[in-house]
């Protein structure tokens, strides 16, 4: 609701210039600028830019819940469609912009030995660095983490300037040959669109927060032409849980954006590979080997980024202007000296690899060089994402293994394309740590269900190998490097959820029937020296009471009074052993003890819970 928005400083609401917002207002990590490292200073600046806009509150004194109780809910759905469409259009134009920049700068068919391969990334790197440092500081960094930050820290706020900045700088960088991908910026553009649109309608803070993942799903879905993967990724990596409140909107926006994208790009899947038939079970061993190799490669990739990125961010501030051009130069040199395939997102190279156009040695070299080029590009702070490079490395590794087998084990009749595709999923699962999304992503970008068995096998192995070698997921590594503390979705997924049964204590308190008289109840408590007791009421209802509460009742009622007649109308809610432990907490403020019942036999008590029991159980973990 609009009441929940921060009050305007000058009454102008959203029109407040972002530059005028005091840093203290943002809930972002507080750093003393004098003591902070350059990376922290940058993070603070980015945080300042991301600071929530102040909404106009013309009707703050009106009870919105009274005049329009379902408005937020319905606008949420309607806006999700608009967000999907607008995100889809922006992502389509974003991809076109990247291609135009590439054609205009690197030429229509760049090849090794062209001087422009060195000059273009160098110059564009300098331009991008200047833009990011002077105009669009919010464009720096991972779009996924920025979206998560918007969700968890900035009340869903992503500024218009950040969206524009991300669009321009990422298009320049990717078109100029930097080894980065367009999906991550697309995701952030989608989230930004959602944030901008939703702010216009003045929705509640809770809704505003949720719009960021809705837009993210739209942006990612349009970029990949894969709605299911986008939805799963947002749930797996951004939101972290299946929430009915947001799922409908995420689905609507993702589908809307994909419909728009397909209107332009067509409905055929991104990659075309023939149906895969694993006739020889030995072939699964090869896919398992691919999983192991993918897990190792993902770990190398993560460690390289984890090593280089913080070091580059901690360099003096002025180096931020030269890091992207130097990174561009490095990438350009790799391209100039024989490997122009690693420049840019590289989707056409992935397609070539799937069609077995390269030898296994070249494919392996491309995978390793792509890791190097992407590590340098991303660590330099150049806007761009990790999705396409991840897919590239995976495709090259997979195709390399597939081609190797084809050459040395021709009897297996393997298909190189399927290995490349599985390789993509493997890196996606192992590097980005989104195992479920990785499986669906492979299915969606290929439109080929027959590949599911090898994908599941290889992805699972890669995920486990990568986790054992690199316990921290890459997005979490980035989060820590950026000085933020966002929830780790992987940790959340693996959290052990405590249930009532974990704190349950055997029934030790007296049970008094509701039909008993007050005097009888008091005598029973005296005999058993009990401080609390349970009252069994008709219809499997329960009531709990302390000795003092009974004494208060006895003071104002005759001892022959039936206990049930003097009880307050509320009853203890039904609780069962499998419910989450925290579900008991709200009731423990009212009730001194809670009976936990058996689902199969209503009315029979499995045990009891007190606040002390719950706290003791939590403290034990």
């Amino acid at each position, binding site marked *: 609701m609009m009441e929940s928005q921060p009050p305007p400083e000058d009454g102008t609401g959203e029109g407040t210039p972002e530059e005028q917002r005091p840093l203290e207002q943002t809930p972002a990590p507080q750093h003393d600028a004098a003591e902070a490292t350059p990376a922290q200073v940058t993070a603070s600046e980015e945080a300042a830019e991301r600071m929530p806009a102040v909404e106009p509150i*013309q*009707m703050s004194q*009106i*009870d*919105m819940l*009274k*005049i*329009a*109780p*379902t*408005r937020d809910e*319905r*606008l949420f759905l*309607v*806006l999700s469609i*608009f967000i999907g*469409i*607008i995100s889809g*259009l*922006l992502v*389509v*134009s974003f991809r*076109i912009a990247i*291609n*135009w920049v590439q*054609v205009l700068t690197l030429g*229509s*068919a760049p*090849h090794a030995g062209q001087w422009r391969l060195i000059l273009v990334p160098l110059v564009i790197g300098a331009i991008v660095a200047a833009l990011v440092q002077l105009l669009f500081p919010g464009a720096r960094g991972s779009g996924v983490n920025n979206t998560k930050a918007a969700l968890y820290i900035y009340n869903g706020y992503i500024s218009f300037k950040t969206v524009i900045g991300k669009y321009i700088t990422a298009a320049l960088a990717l078109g100029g040959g930097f080894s980065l991908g367009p999906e991550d910026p697309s995701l952030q553009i989608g989230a930004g669109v959602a944030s901008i*649109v939703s702010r*216009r*309608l*003045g929705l509640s803070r809770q809704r505003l927060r949720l719009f960021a993942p809705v837009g993210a799903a739209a942006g990612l879905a349009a970029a990949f032409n894969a709605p299911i993967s986008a939805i799963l990724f947002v749930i797996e990596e951004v939101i972290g849980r299946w929430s009915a409140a947001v799922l409908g909107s995420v689905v609507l926006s993702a589908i809307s954006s994909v419909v*728009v994208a397909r209107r*332009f790009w067509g409905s*055929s899947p991104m990659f*075309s*590979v*023939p149906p895969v038939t694993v006739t020889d079970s030995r072939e699964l061993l090869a896919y398992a080997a691919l999983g192991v190799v993918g897990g190792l490669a993902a770990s190398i990739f993560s460690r390289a980024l984890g090593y280089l990125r913080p070091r580059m961010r901690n360099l003096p501030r002025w180096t931020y202007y030269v890091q992207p051009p130097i990174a561009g130069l490095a990438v350009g040199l790799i391209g100039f000296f024989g490997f122009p395939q690693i420049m840019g997102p590289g989707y*056409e190279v992935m*397609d*070539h690899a*799937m*069609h*077995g*156009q*390269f*030898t296994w040695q070249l494919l392996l070299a491309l995978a390793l060089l792509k890791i190097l080029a992407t590590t340098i590009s991303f660590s330099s702070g150049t806007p761009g994402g990790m999705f396409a490079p991840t897919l590239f490395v995976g495709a090259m590794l997979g195709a390399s293994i597939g*081609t190797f087998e*084809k*050459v040395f084990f021709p009897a297996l009749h393997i*298909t*190189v*394309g399927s290995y490349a595709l599985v390789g993509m999923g493997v890196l996606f699962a192992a590097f980005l740590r989104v195992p479920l999304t990785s499986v669906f992503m492979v299915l969606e970008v290929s439109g080929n269900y027959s590949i599911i068995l090898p994908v599941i096998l290889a992805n699972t192995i890669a995920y486990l190998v990568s986790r054992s070698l690199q316990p921290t997921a890459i997005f979490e590594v980035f989060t820590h490097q950026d000085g933020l503390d966002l929830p780790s979705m992987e940790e959340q997924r693996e959290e052990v959820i405590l249930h009532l049964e974990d704190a349950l204590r055997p029934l030790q308190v007296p049970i008094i029937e509701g039909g008993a008289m007050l005097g009888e109840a008091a005598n029973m408590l005296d005999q058993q020296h009990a401080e609390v007791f349970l009252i069994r009421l008709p219809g499997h209802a329960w009531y709990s009471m302390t000795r003092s509460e009974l004494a208060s009742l006895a003071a104002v009622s005759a001892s022959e009074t039936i206990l049930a007649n003097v009880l307050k109308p509320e009853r203890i809610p039904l609780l069962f052993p499998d419910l989450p432990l925290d579900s008991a907490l709200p009731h423990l403020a009212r009730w001194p003890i809670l009976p936990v019942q058996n689902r199969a036999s209503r009315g029979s008590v499995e045990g009891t819970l007190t606040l002390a029991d719950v706290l003791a159980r939590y403290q034990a973990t």
Partner: protein
Amino acid sequence: MRAIPFFRTATPLTAAERMAKRRLVLQDTLALLTIFVITCVLAVLTWLLFRSYSQHQSDAAARWKRRGDQALAVGNANAAVFDLRAALAYAPGDRGTEIELAGALALAGNLQEATAYFNTLWDEEPGSGVINLQLARLAARQRQMATALEHYHGSIYGTWEGDGTVRRRQVRLELVRYLIQQSRFAEARDELLIAAGNDTSTPAVLEVAALLEQAHAPLDALRQYREVASRHPPSIVALEGAGQSAFMLGRYRTARTYLERALAAQRPLINHAAVETNLREADGVLAAYPSPQLPQRERLRRVVHAHDVARMRYLACARQLATAHLAAAPVASPAPAPPAGRSLASRLNLLGDRTAQSPSDKVAAQPASSADSDMTSLATRWNAARPRLEMKDLEENPQFEQAEMQLVYDTEQITSHVCGQPTGTNAALLRIATSPETVDQ
């Protein structure tokens, strides 16, 4: 169906709240309208951008493909690979370009990449005639016969765009050439007989007939040539081919007929000299052959003549062999006396001049080798034969005719093995000996 109000309220609203609600409705409507207009404008802009982009993509794809085609045309395969890859980057999934690119990779010598690429294309479209053909060629180049044959058949029975029948026939003939190259003549013949039925035009039949000749199937080739030669106007190639095939089959009468017609046409022949030579030889054969269709006297005369010619050939060969044995004998160590009389060479020599020998000379020879054995056997038969065959002997004993001609044929065949190819009438008799029953066909 109950309509759900957009703004549902539970309790009556005050005047201020109603006003606020109206303002809220207005604000939301305007906001949604604004978003709608923005969406429309954005859609139009994106569409314009996309149209321009698509045009550029298709132009670039066409330009690079054209360059690739030109590079292929001048044999610059490496440039073609680069250009076609660029074309594919702008038109991904274009099957024609993909196939051209894979072909260019093969031309550039990147057989492994080309095979892998074609295999991937094949995985996507296993029934494609053109992809199977390219894979067959690659396998043939890499000496993988089984794979090559599999893909050749896949191509023949695969799908082709447009001129499928023609392309399938071409692939089949290519397969035939490959089979001939691999000396798998029987399979080549089978494929050719199928191909013959697919196209009955004169050039097509002549092509099949020529390949049948190469596939060591002259009888089938002759059938094809004769079929075309019977058309009006007769094909000079068919006449020549029929004559040569018939000659190869030992059908000298047929051969002579076609070869004469071919020469009489006064038109350029594929191998004019061969036609003339073969015609001459066919004439010689027919002149020497004691055909059952000839009058008896003429036939017997030819038998007697053949007998004389063969006997002379035998004697000459025996002498040649004896000379060769003597020359091969060691000079320092004289050959030990043969256990059962004189040496084979001396016996053959003596047999050669039978009138000067005593009957004791007619001792069975001990074979020293296959040639010696054959010659010894021949010597025995000649010794047993009449020294001089007269026509009246044959008239009195008609059964001699067959036996004498058999001796003639055996003599020509054995002496050709032992003493080399004969000339003149001996050569004609040797040809007859190969297949006497076909000479008159």
